[in-house]
């Protein structure tokens, strides 16, 4: 039993973090707010070169074939740096395509040539391997040739071009591109039934990791501000109202991170209670991210209420990622429907 990341894993995460810090600074979200796509293709390709899109895809399609806990460590960095773009859906799409035997497609996703956005069902009956219909929210559709659809019965890809009534919607998060669209019984690609591969659970783990990264970054930002902002002749962090708010953020982030790792390893090792652990991780990570981001705005006072500060970007992204793969309330119901943890 070992819940501490290995030196290799930490190194992997550090490389990604360095790349994001240099190449995808958070301020770029503001700069690109009016661009059709939240991330430039050049950067997308650079991310692909770094291996970000093939983390869990097999090596024969250009992936790294790493485990879910490795991937969680990387996605935490994506969250920490608020990296825009459909990494979660594209990474999942590459793995999906590879395992379904669409090696060419998988390879082109891994190399960054083809992007996959996320389609979140709003209504309509769950899809199956033959047809997918209903209305969807699309996350980061621009530049994406496909969208990943995850239904309780399974998951697959739809060609973006096959979608109808595509309407761009302004998202509260300037780093996320939102749209709505209808699928009219389109046949999905690379469909895999849920019992064959738990795509939603994998997605929830990675979304949790992103949320943890956001929770940690918001915590760090608030702590830093509390140390340096001087009022009444002393750093504001001497005041328990501020200090204890920072502590509660730290505890929430810590709980969320350890549980997310626990969930990732539970899935990897096929524990019987893996689904319980995954849902638990997503619950605590979602609360940590939204809660910490909101608290950080308050710690920052007037500054935190300005668009030019980063504080609100954490909050907005947290709300976006918390919605991935179904509503938070639905997940709480799912969690209570599980058998007790092992």
């Amino acid at each position, binding site marked *: 039993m070992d819940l501490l990341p290995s030196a290799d894993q930490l190194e992997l995460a550090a490389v990604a973090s360095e790349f994001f810090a240099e190449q995808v600074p958070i301020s770029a979200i503001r700069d690109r707010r009016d661009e059709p796509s939240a991330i430039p293709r050049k950067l997308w390709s650079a991310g692909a070169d770094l291996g970000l899109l093939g983390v869990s895809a097999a090596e024969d399609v250009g992936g790294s074939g790493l485990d879910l806990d490795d991937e969680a460590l990387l996605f935490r960095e994506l969250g920490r740096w608020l990296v825009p773009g459909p990494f979660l859906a594209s990474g999942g799409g590459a793995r999906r395509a590879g395992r379904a035997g669409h090696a060419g497609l998988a390879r082109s996703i891994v190399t960054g040539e083809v992007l996959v956005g996320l389609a*979140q069902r*709003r209504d309509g009956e769950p899809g199956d391997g033959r047809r997918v219909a209903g209305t969807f*929210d699309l996350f980061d559709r621009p530049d994406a040739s496909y969208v990943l659809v995850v239904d309780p019965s399974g998951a697959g890809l739809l060609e973006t071009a096959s979608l109808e009534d595509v309407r761009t*919607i*302004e*998202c*509260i*998060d300037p780093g*996320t591109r*939102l749209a709505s669209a209808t699928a009219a019984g389109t046949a999905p690609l690379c469909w895999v039934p849920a019992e064959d591969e738990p795509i939603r659970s994998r997605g929830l783990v990675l979304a949790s990791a992103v949320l943890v990264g956001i929770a940690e970054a918001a915590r760090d930002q608030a702590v830093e501000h509390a140390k340096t902002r*001087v*009022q*009444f*002749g002393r750093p*504001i962090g001497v*005041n328990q*109202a*501020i200090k204890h708010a920072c502590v509660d953020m730290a505890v929430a982030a810590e709980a969320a991170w350890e549980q997310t790792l626990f969930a990732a390893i539970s899935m990897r090792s096929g524990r019987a209670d893996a689904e319980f652990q995954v849902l638990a991780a997503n619950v605590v990570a979602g609360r940590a991210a939204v809660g910490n981001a*909101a608290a950080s*705005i*308050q710690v920052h*006072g*007037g500054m*935190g*209420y*300005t*668009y*030019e500060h980063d*504080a*609100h970007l954490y*909050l907005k992204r947290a*709300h*976006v990622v918390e*919605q991935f793969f179904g*509503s938070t*309330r*639905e997940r709480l119901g799912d969690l209570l429907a599980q058998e007790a943890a092992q």
Partner: protein
Amino acid sequence: MDLDFTAEQVEFRDEVRTWLAEHAPAEPRPHRDPAATREYDLAWQRTQWEGGWAGIAWPERYGGRGLTLVQQLIWYEEYARAGLPSVDACFVGLNHAGPTLITTATEEQKNFHLPRILRGQDVWCQGFSEPGAGSDLAALSTRAVRDGEEFVVSGQKVWTSFANIADYQELLVRTDRDGPKKHHGITWLICDMSSPGIEVRPIETIEGGAEFCEVFYDEVRVPAANVVGERDNGWRVAMSTLSFERGTAYTASQVRLADTVEKLVDLARERTGPDGRRPAIADDELCRRLATARAEVAALRAMTYAGICRNLRSDTPGPEGSMLKLYYAETAKRVARLAMDILGADGLRATSRWNRPFGWSGNYLYSFSTSIGGGTSEIQRNIIGDRVLGLPR
């Protein structure tokens, strides 16, 4: 004790209701374009003035109606019930600068400014906070040096709402740096925003609002006749301004929050809930949170009424105003967050609280300002702890 309004007050309410139904602006407020916002807000204020509804509780000799806070409350209640936009750009003039001038200014200052505020001629802004002086307002360092019959002002202010469209500013400056305590040596000035040397930089808010600004002062000359209260006595004047803000000035917001809760109840009746089958209002959790919100805004109203009754007996609002402000802010934030929880994924769609129908995601983002602006909730808790409960510092 009673909740009965006098026959005269009931008649007043009827008049307000009828007038508002006939004169309320039909167009939504153009909230993204500063110049259009100014025009809209001032035009609406002018309409109110012409209808005889401006300055309900202000003295008649400065253009007010000379009525009591109860009539003012009735106005706010009917105003909120009619679903009308808040008086945003006119807020500082009507609720900070105006009341402060009434209690503290010279007759000349009052005669000039008060009617202009009521008539919708001027927009006022507040120049209190600075980059280094937020919660610690007394640490302000924007400096004013006397030069003949003028003060020469240099420095910077932040979080100044509507500075980009304002005519005047209630400006706190440091006139004495050698005083025994930093609260001394501060002066409250009326600053003409068209004076040379003033530069205004708008700062966008997290809701996308355009009203926030930084203001830079480079040797701005302000006539010494524009001092309100006395030189070096500005802290006391400013504290009374803040007491207005935390007391009666929020009445309109408090009343509007009750209306927001009812809008949300309606929304929960119409929308499908988290289970995808029943309406959101049938969800036990959302139902109870909505009911709790109803109870809280009811209590907020009761506190507001009680505060008005107390104010009718003594003129200067006490530190109890901070309790209203704190309870308002925390309730407003909970209500705004509840809307996001009811909306689920739809809450990700960017909206503005100025939208029609109401923009809940915009309101959610806006709600973060309620526990920051006008003194953070932490500062309010300090004030209440120290001055209401008498806890040691």
